[in-house]
């Protein structure tokens, strides 16, 4: 490589010697560039965590701005959807329509008008079509086979939101179909028609049976129609109670109906009701009224149980978003407290004995914390929580800048505190003197996962006073910090001596105030880093601490 006469030329030798003596000190960004390109796993970690936090904040913000459907309504919609899917392919309204179930019976005809009226017998195809919303179908001359119809409608008639205004009119004359509507729920008749398929009957057969039944009712006193419609109500209640409470009542109603009509309903389709039966029916009007009362009581019971939204039950999970401006500082420890006393991790400063705290000029600075947590209410007053939090903390250093770099030695100690090695670098930041006085900042960017509890101490549902505590495993995302050299004469940067994983503890007390669907909170907090900022190799311990004022918003999760 080298030519033989290289050193023969004195001029070349001089140039070589002088250039070899020359040294330049690169800026810190060169090492950062090298370090970042060599340790890309950290970048992935930071990117992943940033994505995670961003995602949480995005969904949390979206939930606050545009809340999802109330759980009670969602449950109703789901239930309606399920039953509708089982019986019909048409979409079922999520909210139960209010309707008054009114039954009229006459000797000539019976009419049921729903939200969409159905005219039976106008065509089997129409009856099968489930997409005929708005079509008016009028039931005329209906003869209903009560057991069959009850079976069909047991799936269909939903519990109305209003108590059935059941009116029994024992009339011998014809009643206009339009003048005496009988309102049932919209789904009832739809399912009635559709239900024919479920029981193996053709729709046409069902309608024929209904028509025949009501035709037979022409000659009766009308109680057949009444009992049938009453049975509709009963079966609707029974359905709403999940076939638990209505069995007895249905049996009684059927019994009463049989008594009134003088036998099975199917028998009525083959013979007209005698005058004596009509008389006995009139005589039993009192018992019908009692049955009506029982029905209303049953309805009230079921309405309270299944329809009224639950009120007292509180949700257990909450989303909490917080922001805290903080004042950050640190505690420094590690030093020779006295002659002959062995202090682990003691710095090696022959010229400046004692704690490092005495030789530095530091001051607090402002930082912040932002994060989100999920709270789970264990008891009425106690909640546990876990989440993610980003922490930016810093404090200021008063030091001196100089033009010429000076050697900066950092002693490295073993686990037991003995000095075993040293790191040497160069710095232009002096602790005791230099060209100009400068203020430097020690910045720390941490991601932590607070896990802890909140305890309600005082207050009611609207205004509360709480205390809380957390333990926070944290990861140092980045730092721009100066470390004190071992002889305390300067500051240098040595990222490899920073502890990446750490633990912090947090204490807080806050007031919460409930406004609408959210709860606002504000109060002081204190955060202390439990382990030193530096690894155990660095002889000086630094524990960061922050005093903050946390403000937050809490919203229940669906």
């Amino acid at each position, binding site marked *: 490589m080298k030519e033989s006469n290289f050193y023969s030329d004195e*001029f070349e030798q*001089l140039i070589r010697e002088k*250039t070899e*003596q020359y040294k*330049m000190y690169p800026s810190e960004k060169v090492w950062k560039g090298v370090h970042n390109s060599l340790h890309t796993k950290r970048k992935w970690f930071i990117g992943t965590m940033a994505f995670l936090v961003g995602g949480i904040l995005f969904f949390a913000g979206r939930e606050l701005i545009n809340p999802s459907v109330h759980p009670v309504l969602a449950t109703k919609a789901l239930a309606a959807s399920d039953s509708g899917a089982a019986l019909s392919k048409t979409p079922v309204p999520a909210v139960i329509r209010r309707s008054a179930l009114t039954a009229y019976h006459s000797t000539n005809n019976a009419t049921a008008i729903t939200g969409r009226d159905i005219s039976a017998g106008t065509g089997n195809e129409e009856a099968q079509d489930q997409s005929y919303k708005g079509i008016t179908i009028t039931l005329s001359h209906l003869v209903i086979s009560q057991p069959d119809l009850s079976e069909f409608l047991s799936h269909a008639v939903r519990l109305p939101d209003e108590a059935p205004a059941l009116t029994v009119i024992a009339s011998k004359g014809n009643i206009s179909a339009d003048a005496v509507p009988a309102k049932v729920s919209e789904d009832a008749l739809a399912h009635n028609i559709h239900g024919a398929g479920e029981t193996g009957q053709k729709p046409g057969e069902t309608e024929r049976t209904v028509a025949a039944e009501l035709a037979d009712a022409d000659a009766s006193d009308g109680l057949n129609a009444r009992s049938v419609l009453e049975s509709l109500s009963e079966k609707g209640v029974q359905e709403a109670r999940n076939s638990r409470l209505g069995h007895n009542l249905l049996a009684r109603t059927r019994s009463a109906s049989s008594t009134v009509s003088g036998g099975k309903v199917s028998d009525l389709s083959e013979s007209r009701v005698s005058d004596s039966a009509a008389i006995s029916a009139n005589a039993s009007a009192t018992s019908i009224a009692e049955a009506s009362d029982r029905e209303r009581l049953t309805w009230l019971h079921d309405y309270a149980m299944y329809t009224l939204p639950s009120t007292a039950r509180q949700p257990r999970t909450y989303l909490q978003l917080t922001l805290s401006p903080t004042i950050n500082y640190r505690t420094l420890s590690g030093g020779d407290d006295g002659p002959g006393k062995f202090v682990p991790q003691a710095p090696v400063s022959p010229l400046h004995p004692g704690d490092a705290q005495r030789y530095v000029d530091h001051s607090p600075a402002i930082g912040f914390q932002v994060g989100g947590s999920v709270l789970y209410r264990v008891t009425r007053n106690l909640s546990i929580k876990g989440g993610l939090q980003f922490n930016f903390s810093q404090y200021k250093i008063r030091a001196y800048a100089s033009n010429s770099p000076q050697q900066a030695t950092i002693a490295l100690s073993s686990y037991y505190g003995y000095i075993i090695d040293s*790191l*040497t670098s160069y710095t232009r930041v002096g602790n005791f003197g230099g060209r100009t006085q400068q203020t430097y900042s020690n910045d720390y960017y941490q991601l932590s996962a607070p896990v802890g509890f909140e305890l309600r101490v005082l207050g009611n549902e609207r205004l509360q006073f709480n205390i809380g505590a957390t333990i926070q495993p944290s990861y140092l995302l980045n730092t721009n910090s100066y470390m004190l050299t071992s002889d305390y004469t300067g500051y240098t940067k040595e990222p490899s001596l920073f502890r990446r994983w750490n633990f912090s503890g947090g204490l807080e007390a806050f007031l919460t105030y409930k406004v609408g669907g959210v709860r606002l909170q504000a109060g002081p907090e204190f955060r202390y880093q439990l382990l030193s900022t530096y690894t155990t190799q660095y002889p000086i311990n630094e524990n960061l601490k922050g005093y903050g004022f946390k403000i937050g918003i809490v919203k229940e999760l669906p």
Partner: protein
Amino acid sequence: MTEEAILQGCLKNEAAAQRELYNRYSPKMLAVCYRFAHNREDAEDMLQEGFIKVFSQIHTFQNKGAFEGWIRRIIVHTCINNLKKNKRFNESLDIVHAHGVQVREESVPSIVQAKQVVECIRLLPIGYRTVLNLYAIEGYSHKEIADMLDIEESTSRSQYTRAKQMLEDILIRKKILPKPREKSEWLVAIR
């Protein structure tokens, strides 16, 4: 930390060992880069790229030579590759007669300082400077230089001869070197 410990740590991708290696050699290597580069920023970019190569290829170091020499070769090659990306640099290698360099004469003779010599080298045209750096300071042969720079060996020789002459002239004008008749006495005096 011993060099062996640093090497072992770097092989394990330990940040502390890498930092120690960097702290130990980066001042010298930045000076090398500075002699090739246009300015300090370019030099730092070259240094960063060079050290990334050092750490990523450290497993190829076979302990047969000096560790510093191995690092230095990587840094120099990185500098040359960076220079070759510059069109002006490639053109400058073909210029046989460089334009005269304006050098202000110093009124007072000064002590020869390393920085002065380096700054004088940087006054040379880029083509001259590169060949001078590679041959006189880094110790490459003209054949190696010709291969590295994709030029003829004769071109490398002529460039070096002119570069040396020009540098000497600059040093004399700046009173860093004595005039030829005083040269031998001066060389003795400065050592």
